[in-house]
């Protein structure tokens, strides 16, 4: 367990040491922690990329849920022959390296003027998040008993209102889990942001690499930035840890 966590703890402790002290060998166990690295970061351009990351990840989550949740519900409640096709397609898109989508999107965005925009990122994140939402939410809807909705039909409720008033609230935990996954996948993205942004819409993971390259290897700041982008991820994934495998193997394992 120590071996597993050591690298993470190493970078966290590095982020609270001052410039030179981080690399004094042998390493001192006792040191006076400083938040200077974080303060420097928050006064610099890094804030903007954090905002970009938050905005794009949140928007793609909302969009993927709006589009995907009703589909997942229909797939769960009706026999749809396209479901096998969707499963196969989800796996196929999962197999494709990001650059397979990166190239066509890059060319299209160049023509449309969508390079270096948050909108562009939000749209390309749908390539993996939309099928993920459909896949995960269908499993959650399968777990909601139909009898309640059918009772509502008999009482005269329409299909849409049975979905909105009964199935949706009952699968709220699943909805939250799915939302966290789509958020995390978008938040963790590196390749698309590297390819499709330049300066305005740069997200945090790419921003770190940029200042690693241009600001003369300020390791303390790099460590602080890395800590900042991994904190929400670690916190959120502890919440959804039961469903991690289902999220990571969308298309194959029903979990």
């Amino acid at each position, binding site marked *: 367990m120590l071996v*597993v966590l050591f*690298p*993470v703890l*190493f*970078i966290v402790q*590095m982020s609270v040491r001052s410039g030179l002290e981080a690399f004094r*060998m*042998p*390493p001192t166990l006792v040191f006076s922690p400083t938040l200077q690295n974080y303060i420097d970061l928050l006064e610099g351009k890094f804030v903007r990329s954090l905002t970009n990351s938050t905005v794009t990840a949140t928007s793609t989550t909302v969009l993927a849920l709006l589009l995907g949740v*009703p*589909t997942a519900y*229909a*797939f769960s*409640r*009706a026999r*749809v022959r*396209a479901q096998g096709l969707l*499963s196969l*397609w989800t796996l*196929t*898109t999962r*197999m*494709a390296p*990001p*650059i*397979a*989508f990166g*190239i*066509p999107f*890059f*060319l299209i965005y160049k023509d449309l003027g969508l390079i270096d925009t948050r909108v562009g990122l939000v749209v*390309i994140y*749908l*390539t993996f998040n*939309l099928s993920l939402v459909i896949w995960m939410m269908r499993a959650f809807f399968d777990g909601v008993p139909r*009898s309640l909705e*059918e009772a509502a039909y008999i009482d005269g409720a*329409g299909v*849409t209102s049975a*979905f909105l008033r009964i199935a949706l609230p009952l699968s709220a935990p699943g909805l939250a889990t799915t939302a966290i996954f789509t958020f995390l996948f978008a938040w*963790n993205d*590196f*390749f698309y942001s*590297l*390819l499709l942004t330049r300066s305005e819409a740069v997200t945090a993971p790419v921003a770190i*690499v940029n200042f*690693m390259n241009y600001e003369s290897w300020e390791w303390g700041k*790099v*460590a602080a930035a*890395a800590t900042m982008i*991994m904190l929400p*991820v*670690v916190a959120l994934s*502890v919440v959804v840890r039961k469903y*991690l*495998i289902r999220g*990571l*193997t969308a298309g*194959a*394992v029903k979990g």
Partner: protein
Amino acid sequence: MDRIEATSDRALPWPAARPARRSWTRTRRRVFVGFVTPAVVVLVLVTVLPLLYLVVTSFTPLDLTNPSSRRWAGLTNYRQLAADGRFWNSVWVQAQLSFWTVSLQMVVGFAIALLLNGRLRFLELVRAAFIIPMVLPPVVVALIWKILFTPDISILDWSLGLLGLPQPAWLADPKLALWAVIVADVWEWFPFVMLMLLAALQMLPSEPLEAARLDGASRWQAFRYVILPLLKPALVVATLFRLIDSVKAFPHIFIMTGGGPGTATEVTNFYAYLQGFSYTYVGYSSAIIVVMLLATFAMSLGVLRVAGREHDVE
């Protein structure tokens, strides 16, 4: 959207007196079509069309610096690819990377899953800690290991020196750079294998194991002839996903080695990136990716065929 049929078999028995049933079923179907259509349209727009565009681009000599290069060139790119030594080198690097990362992840993940297979509260906690590497942003993983593998600033380097062992410049040594990447990748993803196998282990039926014990099977025999066959589906799926992801390796290579030194860690994916976006030969880059996609697809089918249990993956 004629593919959608509302369930009649799964629904509760309907009050027979209801005459409107047929039209109601039709209404329900229409609502469901409305639910499904937007997502399907968007999915086709953002995944199917771009992949088609990729294939089309792979038949052109498209160069980003030369707008007039959007023209049909037939199989030129593919012919060039077959004779491209650097491409074949990248395939070889990729094969080594995939082989070592997947096998090490399977071995380490399986071993730790067996160790942690219990219901103690403490084990629960340990398992929660183990998920951290795989959920971290890949960039952070790559940065951590870049720092750990950089001489002078790394505690790893210092510890090796303390033990009197050589302190190689991992990332600058053509022989060791790939291993540095492999270590980082194994660290990041063995928990995935571990989690999948733990879930499978905990769902094992207890009867076969008890029967084997009653028949006097040793622990090893019980493991080899009872547990292993029962875990096979989980092992196959875990291998398949690790294999697919190993082909997608990018951030680690980009950040830790940049494909170097020389082309020592230049996997196919990364080579395609360089061709497309450093050298601006997007057409050629697309051809590399199309070949890669086909190969990944064939490889996945191969794994399933060898495993002989296609129904495990739906």
